[in-house]
């Protein structure tokens, strides 16, 4: 009879599961559980430009201290757990507001409407970055016309200049392949504000899901042009070439001084005041070690 008993146990389990299922189908308030779990760990997410930097820092931080009591003796001996996810600046702000992440990563200015939703929050500057107008090193445009005007950039991205020859007669008659970020990227909004100024980007443009993918596209496609983050240009030294805009070449100095116009901040945002642990990690990010990673990744640390 053991088998049938077993079957009954299974049935009992099913009933329990069903009950659980019914219980869940009401809008369950699992908030306490959430609170508990967020106290244990730090969730960070957003900008695909900044996420690799933070992921690296989080990794170093965890390696260095392992448990919280090593960071601060007052804290209990619990393992440090930090999650980093990507998804774009839009995702960073959105998730910080709705509480899916504790710290949002944003690589553009935070809009006032967004600030309004996070009245008690903090916005911390991790550094600056710029959008460079990047092409493939094989592209003869580097020798022929290494300097574009803002207007030329605009016309290229608006799709008015369809082949390289239309930009300059000496260039081959090959199509211009535009590489851009999708809507959720901070870069697409920054570029829109600073360069396109409401002119729509050509529909032919390839939308790429992350800054890394955009840089990769430019690095592998001889006809591509895209707005690649300054840090990624540095990371891919030799695989991506940069054009000047209005006579200004993007360098660490010209970006920091504000000479190079298409710059953007790299920000951390929180909805509420960060709790003790989050604050400790933010402090680490802003310490020498954290800012060194920012620099290693090719971005410009905030001016002291």
């Amino acid at each position, binding site marked *: 009879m053991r088998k049938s008993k077993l079957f009954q146990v299974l049935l009992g389990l099913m009933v329990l599961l069903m009950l659980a*299922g019914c219980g869940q189908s009401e809008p369950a308030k699992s908030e306490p559980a959430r609170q508990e779990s967020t106290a244990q760990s730090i969730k960070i997410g957003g900008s695909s430009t900044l996420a690799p930097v933070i992921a690296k820092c989080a990794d170093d931080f965890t390696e260095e201290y392992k448990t919280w009591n090593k960071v601060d003796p007052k804290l209990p001996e619990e393992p440090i757990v930090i999650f980093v996810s990507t998804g774009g600046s839009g995702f960073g*702000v959105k998730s910080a507001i709705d509480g899916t992440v504790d710290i949002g990563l944003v690589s553009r200015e935070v809009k006032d409407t967004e600030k309004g939703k996070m009245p008690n929050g903090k916005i911390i500057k991790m550094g600056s970055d710029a959008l460079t107008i990047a092409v493939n090193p094989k592209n003869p445009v580097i020798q022929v016309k290494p300097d574009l005007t803002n207007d030329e950039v605009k016309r290229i991205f608006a799709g008015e200049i369809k082949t390289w020859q239309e930009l300059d007669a000496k260039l081959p008659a090959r199509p211009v392949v535009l590489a851009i970020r999708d809507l959720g990227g901070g870069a697409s909004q920054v570029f829109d504000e600073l360069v396109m100024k409401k002119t729509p980007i050509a529909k032919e443009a390839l939308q790429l899901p992350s800054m890394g993918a955009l840089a990769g596209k430019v690095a592998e496609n001889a006809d*591509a042009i895209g707005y690649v983050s300054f840090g990624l240009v540095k990371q891919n030294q030799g695989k991506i070439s940069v054009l000047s805009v209005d006579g200004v070449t993007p360098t660490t100095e010209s970006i920091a001084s504000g000479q190079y116009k298409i710059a953007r901040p790299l920000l951390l945002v929180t909805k509420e005041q960060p709790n003790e642990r989050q604050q400790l990690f933010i402090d680490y990010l802003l310490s020498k070690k954290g800012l060194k990673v920012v620099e290693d990744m090719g971005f410009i640390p905030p001016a002291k």
Partner: protein
Amino acid sequence: MSDYAVLNKKSFHLSTGTFCLVIACCATLLLLSLLVYMTLVSWPVWFSPGPWGFLTGTDWNPLAAPPQLGIGTMILSTLWTALGAVILATPIGLCCAIFLAEYAPSWLAQLLRPVLNVLTGIPSVVYGFLGAAVLVKYFEITFNMASGESLFCASLVLTVMVLPYIVSASESALRAIPLKYRQTSLALGVSKPYFTLRVLIPLARNGLLGALILAFGRASGETMAVLMLAGNTMVLPSSWFSKGEPLSALIALELGTSEVGSLHYQSLFAAGLVLLLFVLSINLFFTWFRRDRRNEVGKP
């Protein structure tokens, strides 16, 4: 045993049959709730651009002011890729199915079925990755294209992905043909290929068509492979070799970045609903086809 003592027979008044029925009904409700929920979330979209505007509009910029919500380009891209895949996979799939049903020695058939299973099981992200790493590069180098991603590329990879579905569904359609036709043909001394082409295929026509419809539904819903290969541009695809952004890719790209409750979010749900309804209607169509086939042959 003592643990089980609590659950003795008397504490169960529910008969197994009823119990299973309840659960099975819950499954039905799940599908319904999914549909209802998607409709509720996307509700405002069906008013502001209206269904017609939403489906035929070709401008998609939900963050602009005023927002432009039209998924016509994505719908077209989805159709291009899925149809292309089915067109490419049909001849190969049918020949495979015929081979399996009629010609393959049993040891080979025994080997091919697991192969089909594995092909079905290979995750779509792996297909997409291989397609992007190998095919796209190949296209760029061979045809000197500006960039190798295209709807055609996505179709090619989808072809391999839907092939197993076509093969297994077609094979079962072919096997459903009653034995008497085979015996008659043999008695008349007709050669096997002739019998296959002139007797078997016409008889199983509806089943085979059903298989293609099923594959079409599968191909339209595929996400990762398409996301990595179609190129993701907002241009209205004019040919098979242009780039595009199928519906599934649009949702995958933008869901993470849309603010919950915003119009953007709602319109993504509307797009999801469109995709879901499209695939569901294809599925229902398939069922109807199969029922049709039963009426034609195989009546005992």
